[in-house]
């Protein structure tokens, strides 16, 4: 493999946006049959580099070569025609169309009179879906699918054409383990066919499991390329963030206080049934389960976004009816939602205004918003969460995915809630910041907050939680304390196997 020529080579790529030098002379290449990881902190320029390759952005300087030829990717169409498939970090699907139409978007098979050849389309799609081992068919509407399944539709696009290179930009951010292993199978099939794969992820274990080489970017600059086999997590992290990272489990113990939240026999239609649990001050409770287990819906109910069909909610021992998010906020609840673009941010607004949105009524100087106080809040959380943005004036939509997520987290932390619910808090966040956030969650608990963490990442739940609630299909299967939980019994619980049935 070392003698082979790269299929694809980027040379000295420079790309600037107003106020940001996103790429500063980056070079990068992919061999046939290689899985090449691209790593770096949030905002390091990974997605931008790939967008240059995919023809979505034009580089200010630098060149792209395929084999020996210099090529210009004038647009996505050209890139696609040259055999480059791009699986985007943000879902890029038409929700009102069927799975088949989405997978073959832009290249629907044709018959005479410009008609769509539905038979071919359905057959080809179903063949791909079978390979991916998913539970839906070609004619399902994409809008009816869960986020994870929508991600699988994106991934299916990689299999439609004779690709020379496939770019996966954080494909696993919303996938569960089962789907992940399907994805890895797909990748190794492509690899066997001599396709070059570029793989972007913040999850170290995946990187070390499937990639051959790792290229690291920092602040838009090339840091180096290493063979995966010859390195380890620690040195990659150091390359990425320029320092060592403390990855030990947070063993800090503090006093657990009174019950802050108690939920009794809560149900919401078919979404979840008969849910009972409690969260104490100073405690972090993790919620773990497969996608569709109903965890998000519980969080939404507690935040006043859904009306429960039965059951009771107690805050500090007082039964409450939470009628709206505004109501929830006045009761001291914060929710970091699962979908940052749709639910978390107003993309066209600047960073500061997004961050202070829930408390804009409270930050007043006379009748006006106290902008100075807002900037102070923004500055505090920018420093604490290491948010990379040229200024608070930047539109949130221009931030990198991970930095957007940090704005959402900052927004809710700045509310100083007594009950903090975070739903997939570190989706798309780099390792350095992730461990910062984990530390932060522990520190908040130590300060007396009650914290609920919903996550589909087992290491994360294991890492931060004092107790773990395992859910399956709208029901709580079992609640573990941090002493009794193991990876095995947790997996059993979320797969629907009752504790007493287990071996």
């Amino acid at each position: 493999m070392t003698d082979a020529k790269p299929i694809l080579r980027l040379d000295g790529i420079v790309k600037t946006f107003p106020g940001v030098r996103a790429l500063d002379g980056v070079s990068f290449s992919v061999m046939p049959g290689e899985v090449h990881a691209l790593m770096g902190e949030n905002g390091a320029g990974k997605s931008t580099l790939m967008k240059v390759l995919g023809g979505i952005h034009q580089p200010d300087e630098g060149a792209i070569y395929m084999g020996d030829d210099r090529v210009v990717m004038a647009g996505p169409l050209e890139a696609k025609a040259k055999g480059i498939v791009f699986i985007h970090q943000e879902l890029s699907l038409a929700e009102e169309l069927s799975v088949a139409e989405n997978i073959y978007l832009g290249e629907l098979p044709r018959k005479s009179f410009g008609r769509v050849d539905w038979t071919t389309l359905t057959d080809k799609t179903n063949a791909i879906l079978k390979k991916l081992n998913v539970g839906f068919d070609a004619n399902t509407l994409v809008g009816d699918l869960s986020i994870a399944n929508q991600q699988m539709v994106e991934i299916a696009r990689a299999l439609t054409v004779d690709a020379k290179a496939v770019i996966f930009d954080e494909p696993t951010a919303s996938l569960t383990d089962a789907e992940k292993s399907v994805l890895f199978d797909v990748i190794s099939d492509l690899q066997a066919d001599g396709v070059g794969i570029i793989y972007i992820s913040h999850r170290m274990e995946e990187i070390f499991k499937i990639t051959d080489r790792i290229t690291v970017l920092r602040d838009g600059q090339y840091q180096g390329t290493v063979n995966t086999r010859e390195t380890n997590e620690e040195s990659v992290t150091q390359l990425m963030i320029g320092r060592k990272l403390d990855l030990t489990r947070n063993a800090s113990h503090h006093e657990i206080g009174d019950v802050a939240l108690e939920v009794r026999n809560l149900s919401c239609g078919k979404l979840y049934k008969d849910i009972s649990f409690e969260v104490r001050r100073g405690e972090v409770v993790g919620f773990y389960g497969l996608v569709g287990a109903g965890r998000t819906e519980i969080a939404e109910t507690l935040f006043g976004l859904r009306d429960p069909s039965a059951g009771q909610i107690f805050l500090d021992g007082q039964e409450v009816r939470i009628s709206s998010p505004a109501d929830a906020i006045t009761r001291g609840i914060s929710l970091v939602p699962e979908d940052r673009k749709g639910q978390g941010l107003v993309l066209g607004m600047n960073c500061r205004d997004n961050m202070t949105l829930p408390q804009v009524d409270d930050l007043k100087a006379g009748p006006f918003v106290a902008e100075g106080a807002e900037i102070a809040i923004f500055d505090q959380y920018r420093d604490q969460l290491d948010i990379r943005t040229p200024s608070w004036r930047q539109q949130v939509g221009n931030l990198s995915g991970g930095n957007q997520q940090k704005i959402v987290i900052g927004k809710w932390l700045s509310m100083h809630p007594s009950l903090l619910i975070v739903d997939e808090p570190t989706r798309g966040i780099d390792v350095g910041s992730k461990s910062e956030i984990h530390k932060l969650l522990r520190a908040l608990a130590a300060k007396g907050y009650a914290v609920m963490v919903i996550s589909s990442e087992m290491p994360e739940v294991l890492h931060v939680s004092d107790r773990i609630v395992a859910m399956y299909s709208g029901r709580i299967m079992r609640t573990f304390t941090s002493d009794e939980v193991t990876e095995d019994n947790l997996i059993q619980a979320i797969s629907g196997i009752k504790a007493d049935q287990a071996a």
Partner: protein
Amino acid sequence: MATVSKQQIGSVLAKQGILIAFAVFIVAFTFANSKFLTVDNVFSVVRSSAILGVMALGVTFVVISGNLDLSVGSMMSFSTIVVLDLHDKIGPFLAIPAMFAMTLALGALIGFLVGYLKLNSLIVTLGMLSAIHGLTLTYSGGKNMDIADKEGTWFSVFGQGSALGIPVPILIFLLLAAFLGLVLSKTPFGRKVYAVGGNGTAATFSGIRRARTVFFCYIISSACVATAGLIQASRSLGSQNTVGQGLELEVLAAVILGGASLMGGSGTIFKTVIGVLILGFIQNGLLLLGLQFYVQFVVTWIIIILAVWLDIAAKRGKLMSPIA
């Protein structure tokens, strides 16, 4: 640092694209007709734009919140007719608040339908356009409405008076613009309007009461319409049922010309004022040049598109759209 200065120029252009278009346009007309930039003419344009302008201020709120208001023209006819009718019946002191109350009630109805019932604003306000017109016709019996004693009423002050040498309609327009400009850019409510228009779901998730915010945008809009109706009624002391007919699209054109996006979440009061003035000066400038009204149509078309194009081209830093 050539790139930086280019970028700076670019960002100045991006912010002030519409202003520059406005300036270019004024200079061009001034050369074409020496009467154009005289105090009399400027006052005349601003005064006759004031009615449209006051309405556009309110519609700016609605548009930023991500909705439309096509009922303003028909609602303005309603307020004008009502206040004229009541003037002779109960006297101006009571007529004005009564008219405001009725107009605000209509605004509240629309706000309720669009905000709380979440019905599509285009269709709701289109429906209200027709329904309010029917209401006005029923109210007036289809007749023109005139104040009996035109000379002896102080009511004419809103449309015909002047203070400090400035015509009152212009004062009302500018004061209202300043006030609403502050509300929109500086108060929590204004912030919420942007948030709701930018991403309603995210705004809800941030504890903003979206329905209430939208509701108040329509209340503001109808209050502006009532003010416009007051100026209108006072200006001519008599009116037809159709006085505001067709204004909805002109108002919308002014708001959009000012750079507000129909998708919601962007736009400012200041820019709307510029949009209103551009429309007013186009109409007046072409009239002064003695062009046929249909030439004005064509020129207005070209100017609207050029102005908006320049504005967004400056924002993206490229003249042509990147759409493949």
